[in-house]
């Protein structure tokens, strides 16, 4: 029993951070309507600013740095500066990103906040020397004894801080004139303006307050939780889970839910040390908890069809189908053959990776662009394909084309499972569910030592009728036989997708995207269409994952981690998520693709890739919501009269 009490109090530190992130997300949503995925990244930035101040006395800014004194700074001034710099960062996010997106569709707001989340997180290892820096204690190190167990006083202080911060945010929104006006401004901007208070400025105040609150608790908890160049970014997931549990309305409920998740994760940690606890469940369970909670909460609270008067319609960029698919396919095939023929080594690897990534981006065009379901899990589908492929080739000896079909088939099943919540969850909330699902799959399956062998997941190269199609042949890094295989598979699937999107399937997807209630009223089974979309998308991504697997001969958790997945979404959005041509552009600029090869080998800027990708995403969301493909085809349309297919 005393052990249980001990683990409950050990969960307070993580729970306090989740709680304040959740309270901040609810407050920001009430003030601006934005669901901020970057709240964890703000905490991450604050923690590192403080660590650097206390290490060298230098205040690091996103660009440049200010040396303050010659030696390490004392704890509390450093913490104060950390809080201030995060508040300033949050204000900048409001002014530069979210204010211009006030009236933008939810998809644009989601991708902008995902872009910001990635941008800040990718900036941390570039701006801070993450080697050997520690977070020394700020709060007291005293302990007290209660009920036969030793409790850290700092954990209790963190609990109290989280509750106080949430209560203060709640009181601000409920009882102050500014707070009430803030909530009014999010509901009806014009009416709020008539009262004489600027919703913009009130939203700015909210960004400042939540940025400061999140930073404060994260900085105080960092000595307990440890420094990590990325971890805090994902603290946003339990935070979002708690915020959704509170239906995005009650700050105090969100705070309590966040604390509860922290305590629950801590208790699961205790349980996993017991004998008889299954080995496969030892890792990743804590990451699966937020996913399960989000899904259960949203499914219980959600409706199969939006209610009368609910904001059921999601505005999305217009779609455009390729008007001449066969000639375009011919030109692209020639271009791909030329690109493969003229390159070798790492450049050819870049070209092949781009072609594979285009397929994964295409899976997002189908699911998000056409069906309107915002999914952040595409890389988890691809990963499922890749990891099953490793088993299929190494353990079960399944021959080449069948191995891909089998692996992609399993990915399809995972896609349907992840798609189930989408039957009742929509818009930005679905993005949360799919991201939580992706993290859960990553931690519980790909990164689980019980499921993944120590030497990594090896993959046996493909052969067809005795013909060796493997990616490597002696010193040749990327054989032309393998490149041709990739081109054929991706080409066939892309043409099939174009046919589907131009036909009844595409029409029913667009009908569901534009209006679920009306779609049901004309006899479309909205649930099955959504699941079909998830299945199709996961199949495409699964095949992509298999091709990635074959191209690397070995997979690790890093091959398909959530960051890569989010980068691919970034790229698909930047390329133009409602167009098949957008997927092609996405492939060219995707991680390890042609652009990456160019940055890495020619310009030596490979480290900056994720940062550049994230910034491109934010810029696209703000300036050009239809993406590169949409932007250029708009120019072409003015010159050539549009031909109608069908």
């Amino acid at each position: 029993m005393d052990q249980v009490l001990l683990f409950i109090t050990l969960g307070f530190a993580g729970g306090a951070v989740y709680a304040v992130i959740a309270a901040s997300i609810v407050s920001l949503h009430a003030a601006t309507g934005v669901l901020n995925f970057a709240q964890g990244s703000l905490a991450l930035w604050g923690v590192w600013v403080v660590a650097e101040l206390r290490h060298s006395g230098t205040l690091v800014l996103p660009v440049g740095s200010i040396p303050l004194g010659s030696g390490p700074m004392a704890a509390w001034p450093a913490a104060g500066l950390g809080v201030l710099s995060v508040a300033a960062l949050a204000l900048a996010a409001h002014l530069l990103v979210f204010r211009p997106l006030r009236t933008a569709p939810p998809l644009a707001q989601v991708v902008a906040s995902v872009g910001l989340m990635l941008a800040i997180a990718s900036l941390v290892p570039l701006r801070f020397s993450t080697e050997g820096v520690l977070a020394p204690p700020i709060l007291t190190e005293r302990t007290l004894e209660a009920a036969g167990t030793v409790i850290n006083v700092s954990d209790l202080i963190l609990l109290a801080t989280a509750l106080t911060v949430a209560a203060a945010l709640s009181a601000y929104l409920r009882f102050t004139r500014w707070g009430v006006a803030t909530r009014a401004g999010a509901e009806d901007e014009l009416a709020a303006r008539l009262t004489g208070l600027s919703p913009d400025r009130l939203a700015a105040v909210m960004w400042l307050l939540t940025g400061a609150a999140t930073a404060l608790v994260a900085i105080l908890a960092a000595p307990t939780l440890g420094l990590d160049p990325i971890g805090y970014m994902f603290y946003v997931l339990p935070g979002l889970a708690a915020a959704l549990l509170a239906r995005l309305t009650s700050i105090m409920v969100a705070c309590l839910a966040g604390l509860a998740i922290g305590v629950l994760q801590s208790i699961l940690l205790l349980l996993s040390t017991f004998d008889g606890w299954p080995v496969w469940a030892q890792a990743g369970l804590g990451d699966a908890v937020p996913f399960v909670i989000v899904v259960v909460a949203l499914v219980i609270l959600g409706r199969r069809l939006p209610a009368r008067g609910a904001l059921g319609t999601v505005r999305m960029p217009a779609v455009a189908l390729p008007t001449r698919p066969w000639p375009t396919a011919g030109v692209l095939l020639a271009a791909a053959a030329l690109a493969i023929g003229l390159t070798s080594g790492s450049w050819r690897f870049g070209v092949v990776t781009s072609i594979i990534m285009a397929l994964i981006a295409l899976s997002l065009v189908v699911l998000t662009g056409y069906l309107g379901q915002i999914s952040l899990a595409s890389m988890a589908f691809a990963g499922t394909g890749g990891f099953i492929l490793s088993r299929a080739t190494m353990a079960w000896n399944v021959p080449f084309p069948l191995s891909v079909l089998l692996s992609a088939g399993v990915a399809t099943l995972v896609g349907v499972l992840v798609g189930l919540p989408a039957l009742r969850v929509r818009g930005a909330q679905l993005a949360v569910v799919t991201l939580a699902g992706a993290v859960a799959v990553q931690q519980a399956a790909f990164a689980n030592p019980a499921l993944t062998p120590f030497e990594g997941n090896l993959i046996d190269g493909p052969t067809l009728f005795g013909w060796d199609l493997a990616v490597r042949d002696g010193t040749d890094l990327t054989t032309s036989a393998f490149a041709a295989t990739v081109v054929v598979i991706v080409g066939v699937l892309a043409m099939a997708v174009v046919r589907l999107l131009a036909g009844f399937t595409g029409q029913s997807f667009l009908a569901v995207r534009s209006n679920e209630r009306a779609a049901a009223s004309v006899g479309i089974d909205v649930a099955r269409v959504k699941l079909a979309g998830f299945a199709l998308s996961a199949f495409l991504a699964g095949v992509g994952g298999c091709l990635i697997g074959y191209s690397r001969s070995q997979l690790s958790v890093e091959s398909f981690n959530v960051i890569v997945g989010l980068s691919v979404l970034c790229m698909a959005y930047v390329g133009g998520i409602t167009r098949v041509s957008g997927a092609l552009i996405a492939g060219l600029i995707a991680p390890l693709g042609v652009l990456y090869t160019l940055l890495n080998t020619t310009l030596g800027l490979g480290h900056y890739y994720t940062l550049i990708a994230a910034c491109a995403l934010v810029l696209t969301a703000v300036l050009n919501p239809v993406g590169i493909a949409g932007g250029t085809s708009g120019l072409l349309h003015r010159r050539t009269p549009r031909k109608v297919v069908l």
Partner: protein
Amino acid sequence: MNPPLLATEGLTVHYGGVRANTDIDLHAGAGEVVGLIGPNGAGKTTFVDAVTGFTPSHGTVSVAGRRVDRLAPHQRRRAGLARTWQAGELFTDLTVRQNVAVAGGRGPLRNLCNDLIGRAEPGDDVDAVLETFGLLPVADRRPGKLSLGRQKIVGVARALAGATRVILLDEPAAGLDTDESAEFGTHVRAVAETGRAVLLIDHDMTLVAAICDRVYVLDYGAVIASGTPGEVLADPAVRTAYLGSELVP
């Protein structure tokens, strides 16, 4: 005698503690245009939502004698029960032709196979429906580019695609001018002539009186009168509901 194409018995809808529809018995036969009128807030749209499955209800709904009240909205549509929406709710991303073609209810797997092998579904005569309503010239335009009157007609055409036997029109003439309204009336009568049942909800009494065979009047969620348009409009209870009690002698 054949069962009526549309029949409801004891249809009741609660929103929280509020009864939005109470014990509504209504029927409409083949070839009939039946009106449903009542003041704002009387529960007319709630009735349409309940019949088509968009809001939970008690009581029975049957189409040509077959109970459909346990079915999901899309299944009721496939059983022949179609509706239009007050706000149009056309698919803005699809052309007029696609708006009609997408209706009728095939499963996604069937669509997938049809698309891959390039087969058109037999029995889909989208152009015939468009022709009937004079929509062929605008078939390849997006509904947002059409006049409000035309958009309403696209909504009706979409509701008629496939094997529709009963169509519920929710304020189809709202926002139309007099000419458009009259033209719309002839379309509605023509639909009924093909052996379907039409339930028309509208505020436009001229239209209702001109094309309806029978009329039901709702007030506070209950039927307070029914009969031919002439009988109903002469009913004192109806006049009270519409005009207020102090004006009735």
